[in-house]
């Protein structure tokens, strides 16, 4: 039997189509407000030094924004947080521009373009912005990226007994890549996970226990939400956020790899 990995969620961040943060997003997911899809708005990353802010692309800004929301909710400051970044691809626009230039005779790509092309670019900017020297795992598992990130973060929490922040973010490619990988918009989720229930009672929001399952993944009955869940890999985490938003005990199956899925049992604190 596979074990259950237990963690306590202390903070959530959410930005995506029709979601401008966890504070308002949780009301939508709890059914108190209707969900209406709208183009994702990414806030300006005030925390980044000016030089990095100029160079930062959408995936950097998106990841910073969701993580800062989760960290603020957990009332953590200057904590040297181990991190997991999970991206189903890197910076789509930057990748497109490099490939376009390399297909011509003038292949002089700029240094900034090149260092922004690494899959861990957002992790690098994030560590600079938050002055975090703790370890970061920078992952990709294509459509399974949210589940893969959640699993890695949970193993950090349970095996190493540390807090860990998970950031799952995705950004679109322009054409012609878009036709091959049709991610429609930016979407990011951040979860701040802790090994123990916080002594400050308001801090821990929810206990989660995660194990492998072969049961079918949860599908939203709301067609717009279900479209979003399937269209952007980071949004595969939304069913978990809905359970957290409803503040009810329950369980949900999240997509992972092929027919290997994650059963998440949720218990509000």
């Amino acid at each position, binding site marked *: 039997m596979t074990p259950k990995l237990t963690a306590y969620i202390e903070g959530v961040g959410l930005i995506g189509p029709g979601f401008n943060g966890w504070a308002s997003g949780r009301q939508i997911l709890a059914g108190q407000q209707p969900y209406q899809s709208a183009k994702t708005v990414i806030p300006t990353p005030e925390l980044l030094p000016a030089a990095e802010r100029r160079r930062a692309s959408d995936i950097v800004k998106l990841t910073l924004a969701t993580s800062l929301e989760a960290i603020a909710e957990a009332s953590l400051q200057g904590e040297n947080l181990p991190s997991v970044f999970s991206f189903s691809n890197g910076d789509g626009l930057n990748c497109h521009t490099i490939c376009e230039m390399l297909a011509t005779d003038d292949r*002089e790509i700029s240094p900034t373009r090149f260092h922004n092309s690494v899959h861990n670019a957002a992790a690098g900017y994030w560590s600079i912005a938050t002055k975090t020297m703790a370890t970061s795992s920078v992952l990709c598992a294509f459509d399974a990226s949210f589940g893969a990130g959640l699993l890695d973060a949970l193993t950090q929490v349970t095996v190493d007994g540390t807090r860990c922040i998970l950031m799952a973010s995705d950004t679109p490619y322009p054409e012609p*890549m878009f036709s091959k990988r049709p991610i429609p918009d930016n979407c990011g989720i951040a979860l701040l996970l802790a090994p123990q229930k916080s002594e400050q009672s308001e801090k821990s929001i929810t206990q989660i226990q995660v194990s492998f399952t072969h049961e079918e993944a949860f599908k939203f009955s709301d067609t717009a939400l279900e479209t979003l869940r399937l269209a952007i890999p980071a949004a595969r985490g939304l069913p978990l956020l809905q359970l957290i938003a409803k503040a009810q005990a329950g369980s949900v199956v999240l997509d992972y790899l092929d027919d290997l899925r994650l059963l998440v049992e949720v218990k509000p604190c």
Partner: protein
Amino acid sequence: MKPLLLSHFTVTSCIGIGLQQTLDALLHARQGLKPCDFETVDLPTFIGEVDDLDDVQMRDGMAEYDCRNNRLAQLGLEQDGFNNAVNAAVAKYGHDRIGVFLGTSTSGILETELAFRHRDKLTGALPEDFIYSKTQNTYSVADFTRHYFKLAGPAVVVSSACSSSAKVFSVARRMIEAGLIDAAIVGGVDTLCLTTLYGFNSLGLLSTQACRPYDVARDGISIGEAAAFALLERPSATMDDSAVLLLGIGESSDAYHMSSPHPEGLGAKIAMQQALQSASLAPTDIDYINLHGTATPSNDAAEAKAVSAIFTQPIPCSSSKGATGHTLGAAGAVEAVICALALQHSFIPGGLNTKKVDAELKLDYQLQNTNQPLKLVMSNSFGFGGTNCSLIFGLAETTGDAK
């Protein structure tokens, strides 16, 4: 940390296909770098190319994964009986109890670079036979490996530039310790492409000759390609003294700059300290350090400062990149395997191409091979974005875990 056994391992790079050729090249101080003649690339630099990758045929049912990176992955997996060892592990543990954790920096991006040259003249569309998910996507090589062995356990790619395939050992350690799996295929695969050649050129970081780590006149990297794999399991009661164990892991972030290391090597220092701590070892216990040693002026200087700060007694060091080139996302796994070979065959591999060691760097940098028994070695891997990982390997005889 609880030690883990590298029950099988293999490496394929420009110095050799499989362990025997690699060991032979190391023992004879043979490097594999040559003037760049890759694809249409016109840059005055050297590369470490694996010969005849274009001739590799993907196995049945795996055609959709066809790209340079997965060809190299397949070639690498089929050396030294590594595939048989994985199949034996599947029989022992079950196909859902084996994880796949691989590092790459550029995956199959070459396929996309080529596809962009063949866009439809009217619509701009990419060729129909270009399959993004199975080639370019960063996860592709783990997906390929998982399907190659028909595995059903967890899998992920770590892509943090040049620390990628060192950090996979950490992901695997946590998964095994959490009880989610019993064994893991870890490793790294990275292949030559235009993005890294022109990208490092734009940063002025490509050497015009075969790279010279820690040389007073070092002037940049030579990019190489490689595939290296290890099968990680819990130590067994039947392993012998020459079995290689992973004993320590340290990881950190510089939080300093996207493409330059912290000048004092602060992040590197933290990674090495943590690795020692997690193995419950003192700096004086380590017999040899396989340096990151990329041969750029600033990388080697920062690493040297960090090493000197922790290892206050002289310790033999060298970089393998003079032999293999910098294999980027594969470097951590390649150098882990080189460390394993050094342990099992009792030698310190000398750093190649370097003529005059930079005296400013104050390291005991080895230019010649030395035959001597080694018990504990460290391997460093640092990358863009300020990501650092140090690993400690040792022979089972040193830990008392052997039979």
